[in-house]
């Protein structure tokens, strides 16, 4: 709509816009492909930027937060509550949607309005990450860049796997998602945190439950983590090391006694994007330090 209005408001605007477009197109790259891309899902935006195609994005959803440049784009809302008319009005020539983008009514209307929409595969394992990168690159018409990024990601993952295998012992890691009023919400099985801990060569300390759950004090002590893993981004979920080790139950675990806390960015750690291998390596290095301190 905005473009259309420029055309009618005056030739000057239209001319300038056209000139800028021409310049952008001629200097950026020679590849063909969509130019007005909407990223619906945090890893979609991250992969587009990792492919160095960030300038093709015209909008992103609320869950897209990396890299920082993506935050400057218009926000289309929560990825499962997309508004069909607003999306159509932006005249995208490609929507890169996470597997759970919705609601289904919106996806159906977008299809009927012939808005090109590519749904990315769900990623919970390293192999899925590579598939996601390839699908994204393919839909942007930058297959080679995709192969390169996939190869780099694969190399990172390989290094992480080698480092994980080389650990002399496998520390028990508890991922703490949040502390609500002194109660610990930790990651059980079937979570991206558990997958990440395994990639880094650790053992998830909480194995009896599935998903992110509140733990009782006794369960925390029984889990006996050697290391506490938490997120360090700003906002409500940022947990201070001092708060964690001061928790009465956590303080009684090996991790609490030795104040072994590792904090990493949430999307980096759990996003299963192109930085997965890198994040696993970083966590692995932290685990090595714990073992070296005689706490593993």
């Amino acid at each position, binding site marked *: *709509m905005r473009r*259309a209005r420029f055309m009618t408001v005056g030739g000057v605007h239209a001319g300038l816009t056209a000139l800028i477009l021409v310049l952008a197109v001629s200097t950026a790259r020679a590849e063909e492909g969509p130019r007005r891309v909407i990223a619906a899902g945090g890893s979609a935006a991250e992969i587009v930027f990792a492919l160095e195609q960030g300038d093709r994005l015209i*909008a992103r959803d*609320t869950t897209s937060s990396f890299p920082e440049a993506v935050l400057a784009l*218009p*926000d*289309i*809302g*929560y990825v*499962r*509550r997309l*508004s*069909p*008319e*607003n*999306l*159509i*009005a*932006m005249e995208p020539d490609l929507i890169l949607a996470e597997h*759970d983008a919705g*609601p*289904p*009514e*919106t996806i*159906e*209307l977008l299809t*009927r*309005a*012939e808005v090109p929409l590519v749904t990315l595969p769900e990623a919970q394992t390293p192999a899925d990450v590579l598939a996601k990168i390839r699908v994204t690159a393919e839909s942007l018409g930058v297959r080679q860049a995709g192969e390169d990024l996939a190869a780099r990601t694969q190399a990172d993952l390989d290094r992480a796997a080698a480092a994980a295998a080389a650990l002399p012992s496998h520390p028990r890691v508890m991922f703490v998602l949040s502390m609500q009023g002194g109660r610990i919400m930790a990651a059980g099985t079937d979570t991206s945190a558990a997958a990440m801990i395994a990639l880094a060569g650790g053992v998830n300390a909480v194995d009896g439950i599935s*998903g*992110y*759950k509140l733990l009782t004090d006794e369960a925390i002590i029984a889990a006996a983590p050697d290391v506490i893993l938490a997120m360090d981004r700003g906002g409500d979920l940022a947990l201070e090391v001092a708060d964690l080790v001061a928790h009465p139950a956590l303080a009684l675990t090996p991790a609490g006694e030795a104040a072994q806390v590792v904090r990493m960015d949430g999307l980096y750690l759990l996003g299963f994007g192109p930085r997965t291998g890198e994040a696993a390596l970083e966590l692995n290095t932290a685990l090595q330090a714990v073992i070296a301190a005689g706490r593993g």
Partner: protein
Amino acid sequence: MVALDAGYPLGDRDAQARVAMIALSVALVLTAGLSLSHGASGVSLGSVIQSLATGEQMAARDRLILWEIRLPRMLTGVLVGASLAVAGAVMQGLFRNPLADPGLVGVGAGAGLGAVVAIVLGGLAPVWVTQAVGYHLVPVAAFLGGWVSTLLLYRVATRSGRTSVATMLLAGIALGALAGAATGVLVYIADDRQLRDLTFWGLGSLGGASWPKLLAAGPVMALALVAAPFLARGLNGLALGEAAAHHIGLPVQRVKAVAILTVAAATGAAVAVSGGIGFIGIVVPHLLRLATGPDHRFLLINAGLAGAVLLLLADLITRSIIAPAELPIGIVTATLGAPVFLWILLRRRGMVDL
């Protein structure tokens, strides 16, 4: 309406109410037009009329936006807004309590539980269910949940052919607590994504409006809206108390039964298509009572008109305020409506001595 007027002299307030009815009808036509012509894309009502007049074909995309997105959304908004407001007015009349809302007959708790079950356990549904309802599992489950809990409450509160509204109110609280507990269990086993879906569902939205949904839920709401004005005489009578109403010859039990079923149908269908939109059922009837009096002959119709206007206006705001994203509509109705309601209460404290 004319038949129901028999025996009631027309006073000042009746004249006021009639004026309000005309004004609200005009407002509804205007807001409906605005809802059709306003949106992120450039399609306007003017361009449609032009294309109709000149016989030119609209671009396929514009036609889709107008007929498949805005029109079903506008009609859903009218029906949902009217249903919620009328259901609220009927409940306040039936329970003779200014705090009554459709939640009291268990619709809200039941529909909420139905929606949570569908969101959290939807993946476990048998194949034939998924094939039959497709991705409309949540609305269908919400509607069924609302109905089942209302019928249950009605059975509990009815003894030897007489429904006690007091029993119904208390049983409704118990049933609500039970549904809340069941919802809590499901929330506990839900994953993060489902939790977020639940939260958004509870805040309501007209965003998912579509023809299939409208064709399924619309007739139920329309039927309830048509039936409601016939309750006016009965509800006016009940204002005197049940015994007095009985003595002036009103079929009290029938009024109660029809009122409860009407509310369950209207609210159940409205909640199913739009999620939980609070506030309209409480505030719209009260505003109208303050403005034009408590006579249900006008109140029920005016509440329907005002509810529709209010929801359409709120929807216009949700669509544009944080475009290209959309705000849940429940946030808008409460943020705008509650302060207005408070202001009116404070200004006219003497009139509403609760």
